[in-house]
């Protein structure tokens, strides 16, 4: 196929250069503060070459690989939502003159991001947020501007993390849609190379400029083997076809009390989750009360304030807040958006300070469901 070609690490640098020439702000993985995070990068030397991550519930650690792979890790605490749906977004400013108040809406961002190293589960998570912000009657102009401007360079995972379960959620490890270019990094002892596939016209244009060679049968077979190996080594598994019925029939299951005893309601899981979209708004004004502004910021269903009404919090107990989070992710999201809210990325397991494992919580309910009649 002529939309597939093979690049070396030098060819990858040419990709960065080409994207920068096209005016993109390049964001990709880099090692910082003991983790692989997404940040502005210049080029190949910024990538986490030779690093991998070891992950388990409540545990994340960087480790050296015994090769020099550039994308030889799974995923870190960041997700692309930090760029498409930033943690703070001003909505408008206002200015009072006498009794009149003039409101100036914040214009949508003109920033065009190129995302480097987007995993299959992350592409799925972006598609899930597209559904939230672009799929309903009210489209979010800020999200749309950033989303439409973005160029996505995906990577097929060569290494499943210890908390990954994308195979169970049918969201990976193979990238299959939603990218401009998709890379598969091949470290088979031969040449360190990348099989690159264009997934859009824009991607094809960029690829045509890069110093690659045509992919051989051998390259394609090696790329295929990478994804197959990853699919066979998932850290976790979770049956997902019946979660909607299972969880909604078990809203009063004793397991919610049990998990609430461990849960700190810190909200880490919602912050790291690539699909969680909830926000709050905050107004502020200058001392004279002349100028004011409204911003929205990420919020979490784990806070008491989230459901605050004048008579108190609707979800006052930790039990009800954990239940909201998990049933929203895995069940009611399907009612709302026609898809699960979980892509099996494993971040909520890894970054939970007490190591609560969503797959384990589901299993506990599945293995010992309530009598029929407890649900909706």
């Amino acid at each position, binding site marked *: 196929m002529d939309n597939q070609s093979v690049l070396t690490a030098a060819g990858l640098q040419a990709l960065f250069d080409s994207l920068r020439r096209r005016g993109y702000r390049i964001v990709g993985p880099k090692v910082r503060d003991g983790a692989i995070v997404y940040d502005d990068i210049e080029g190949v030397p910024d990538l986490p070459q030779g690093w991998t991550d070891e992950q388990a519930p409540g545990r994340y650690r960087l480790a050296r690989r015994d090769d020099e792979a550039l994308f030889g890790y799974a995923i870190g605490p960041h997700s692309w939502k930090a760029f498409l749906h930033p943690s703070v977004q001003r909505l408008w400013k206002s200015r009072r003159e006498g009794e009149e108040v003039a409101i100036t809406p914040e214009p949508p961002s003109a920033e065009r991001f190129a995302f480097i190293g987007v995993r299959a589960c992350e592409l799925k998570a972006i598609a899930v947020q597209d559904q939230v912000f672009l799929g*309903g009657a009210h489209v979010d102009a800020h999200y749309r501007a950033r989303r439409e401007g973005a160029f996505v360079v995906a990577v097929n995972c060569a290494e499943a993390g210890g908390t990954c379960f994308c195979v169970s959620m049918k969201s990976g490890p193979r990238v299959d849609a939603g990218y401009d270019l998709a890379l598969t990094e091949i470290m088979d002892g031969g040449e360190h190379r990348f099989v690159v596939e264009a997934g859009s016209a824009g991607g094809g244009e960029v690829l045509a400029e890069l110093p690659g060679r045509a992919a051989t049968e051998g390259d394609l077979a090696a790329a295929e083997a990478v994804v197959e190996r990853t699919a066979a080594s998932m850290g976790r598994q979770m049956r997902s076809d019946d979660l909607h019925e299972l969880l909604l029939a078990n809203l009063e299951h004793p397991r919610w009390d049990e998990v609430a005893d461990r849960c700190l309601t810190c909200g880490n899981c919602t912050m790291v989750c690539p699909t969680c979209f909830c926000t709050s708004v905050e*107004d502020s004004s200058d001392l004279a009360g002349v100028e004011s502004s409204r911003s*929205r910021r990420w*919020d979490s269903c784990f806070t008491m304030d989230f459901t605050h009404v004048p008579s108190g919090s609707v979800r006052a107990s930790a039990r009800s807040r954990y239940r909201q989070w998990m049933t*929203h992710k895995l069940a009611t999201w399907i009612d*709302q958006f026609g898809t699960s809210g979980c892509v099996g990325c494993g971040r909520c397991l890894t970054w939970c300070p007490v190591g609560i494992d969503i797959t384990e919580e589901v299993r506990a309910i599945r293995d010992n469901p309530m009598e029929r009649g407890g649900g909706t």
Partner: protein
Amino acid sequence: MWTLEIEPSGPAPVAAAPGQFNMLTAFGVGEAAISLSGDPAEPGRLVHTIRAVGPVSRALAQLRPGAALGLRGPFGAGWPMAEAAGRDVVIMAGGLGLAPLRTAIHRLLTERARYGQVLVLYGARSPADILFRRELETWRRRLDVEIEVTVDHAAVSDWRGHVGVVTTLLGRASFDPANTVALVCGPEIMMRFSAAALADAGVRAEATYLSMERNMKCAIGLCGHCQFGPVFICRDGPVFRYDRIAALLRHKEL
């Protein structure tokens, strides 16, 4: 309790249906969901009744005549006025829940001939908490509508009316339950009991409507705050047919 009348500036406001709400901003303080509580026959006047309970509602209540506030709306699904045509209508309100129902009552009385019996059953905490008291008294003088008010507690010296929860009024009322639409708004616990009492009286769940309240930030289905199981109350409600949410209401803290 404060009633604000808002005169729109800028583009002409979209006509609101009874039961819908607006998002009102006190500049520099914040925004709150407030129901339209006025007479829908006077669309140029946007009337909101506000209980000062927190920062935003207090700031809105303190606005002086002529001051500017921010308004977005109207939002949400309102009361099923078309469905009520030709039927008896039972309105059950608790506390501030009378505000969003006031719009529906005005509509019923303006188009009185379109409906069967009209009953308004209202429960307030004490005589001093009765909202729209003069208006209730005016309506009470009409022969084509039944208005009953009860209070939770009162000194004998200042209240001659009913004492007890609003559901006790239902037993006294005469209407045809098989051909009735019931509109209920008040604290959630009051709505649960009212819906159950209506069902006991023979009103079908499919003809009973509740207006739900949750924390709301965006009112357009994007901020996640108002989720109630699968629904977004801002977008799918706030008025719901009881049979569609009865199962959800059985779970506490959903």
